[in-house]
């Protein structure tokens, strides 16, 4: 079975301090957390893989195929702060955007796509908020709208950038439940996580970055005090929130 995400020698950024250097790594199905300090290249990895930013060297393949061929199977969830939530659109409008490859560019949204969008919103608990303008949602609700949009793509691989950052407890539970559901269906989730909490309880694998691969593998093996210390520079006050295995 081909790895859902596989990179070889990925290098991003010029000069002496590239954002990522020579990253070689294969993901496995299930939930993988991508960890590291600020500036470690976590978001960069996702963006370079999707060719949102250029890479200096290296190659990334999805399910054994190049990006263009594999696109229909990939869903991307950017950081919440990357968009203007004041935009005039309802939650349903945003989720429906995921269905764009299946629709005409004009006219009203076909009923089937609208229903698919509603179903995605329901799966994150926002079915009553479909017509609310996104600026009137809380941060956690906005994050769930983004997740619903990714779900509406019906993908096999989900690349998520800090979906649990600054969300309320209900949102956190909902998102984690959805992720576990995806894992049970055999999908793959690569999630950039903003801190070190929840790893042992919820994730199968970790990839720890600090401009390069520090550690990778099952949580039990790779998520250790030693690897964290290496990645985060061994600063005394930076003990993880929960004790690693």
């Amino acid at each position, binding site marked *: 079975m081909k790895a859902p995400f596989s990179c070889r020698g990925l290098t991003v950024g010029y000069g002496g301090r590239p954002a990522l250097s020579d990253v070689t790594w294969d993901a496995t199905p299930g939930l993988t957390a991508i960890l590291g300090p600020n500036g470690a290249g976590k978001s960069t990895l996702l963006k370079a893989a999707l060719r949102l930013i250029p890479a200096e060297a290296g190659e990334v393949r999805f399910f054994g195929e190049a990006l263009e061929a594999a696109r229909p199977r990939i869903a991307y969830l*950017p950081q919440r702060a990357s968009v203007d939530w004041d935009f005039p659109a309802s939650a349903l409008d945003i989720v429906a955007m995921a269905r764009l490859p299946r*629709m005409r560019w004009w006219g009203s949204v076909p009923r089937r796509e609208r229903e698919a969008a509603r179903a995605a919103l329901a799966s994150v608990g926002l079915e009553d908020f479909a017509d609310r303008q996104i600026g009137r949602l809380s941060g956690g609700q906005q994050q769930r709208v983004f997740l619903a949009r990714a779900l509406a793509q019906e993908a096999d691989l989900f690349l998520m950038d800090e979906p649990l950052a600054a969300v309320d407890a209900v949102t956190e539970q909902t998102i984690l439940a959805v992720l576990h559901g995806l894992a049970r269906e055999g999908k793959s989730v690569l999630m950039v996580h903003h801190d070190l909490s929840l790893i042992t309880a919820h994730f199968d694998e970790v990839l720890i970055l600090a401009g390069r691969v520090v550690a990778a593998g099952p949580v039990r093996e790779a998520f250790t005090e030693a690897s964290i210390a290496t990645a985060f520079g061994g600063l005394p006050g930076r003990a993880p929130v929960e004790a690693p295995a």
Partner: protein
Amino acid sequence: MMDFLRLDLPALLAAIMAGGTCGLLGSFLVLRRESLLGDALSHSILPGIVVGFALTGLRSAWPMLLGALVAALLATLAIGWVRRAARLETGAATGLVFTGFFALGLVLLEVTGARNADIDVDCVLFGQLETLVWLEATGLASLFDTAALAGLPRQLGLLAAVALVAGLVVALCWRPLQLIAFDPDFAASLGMRVGRWEMGLNLLIAGAAVAAFEAVGSILVVAMLICPAVALRLITDRYRVQVLGAAALGAALGAAGVLLAGPLPAAMGLNLSLNAAGLIGTLAGLVVAGSLTVRTNRAAAA
């Protein structure tokens, strides 16, 4: 009636088309948080317009349009280059490039002065709506007389063409434009070539700026691009209302400015007419102020 057809109708049509087209496209600038680009494109096209005229000596619109599009393209590239080469943030780099292009355009305008019978500095600064006349009109029947219609100012032809193209593009690409405005990274992840879409939109805006420039000059194009969109942005949360409302408001402001420029002073007993383009811009500013007041009152009442 004949006076209206001969002297007022062309300016009215020009203002309505310019206002409507710029209002329509301006929403995308404001939604993409790129209003500065509207300012930049309107100023940067000047050297292209002048060169287009000067090189061909033609009175037709097409060399001017082509020159403007080339200038817009060069300006966009220049902004990117300045950002990298001078490590300057986008706002300062944009300001540097568009004032430089505009200054170059002014110098070229003077240097090639003899050839530019149709545009001069006053046109650039204040527009020339008042000079659009249709002397071939002899009555309502002229509206259906192709020979008379051929005498309409050529600016109307370009404005109509750009209005049509802009309307078609927005209608046919309704959803992709919305997505690119909201979340270009997600759009790219779906496989859309966002860079090309953005370049296409910018060129369309440059085209609208050229068409409108001949009517209202360089500075007031900015008013028509930005003000209707801002006015709608302040009071609506619905995308369709935003985009179509700004277009309608732009057209209405154009009409109002032209209609009030003559009759208003006459009603006040003054024997002069106000600069129509300036009046459009002033009304646009007042509408934004009104919009802001409505929004503030809504917030206070809530």
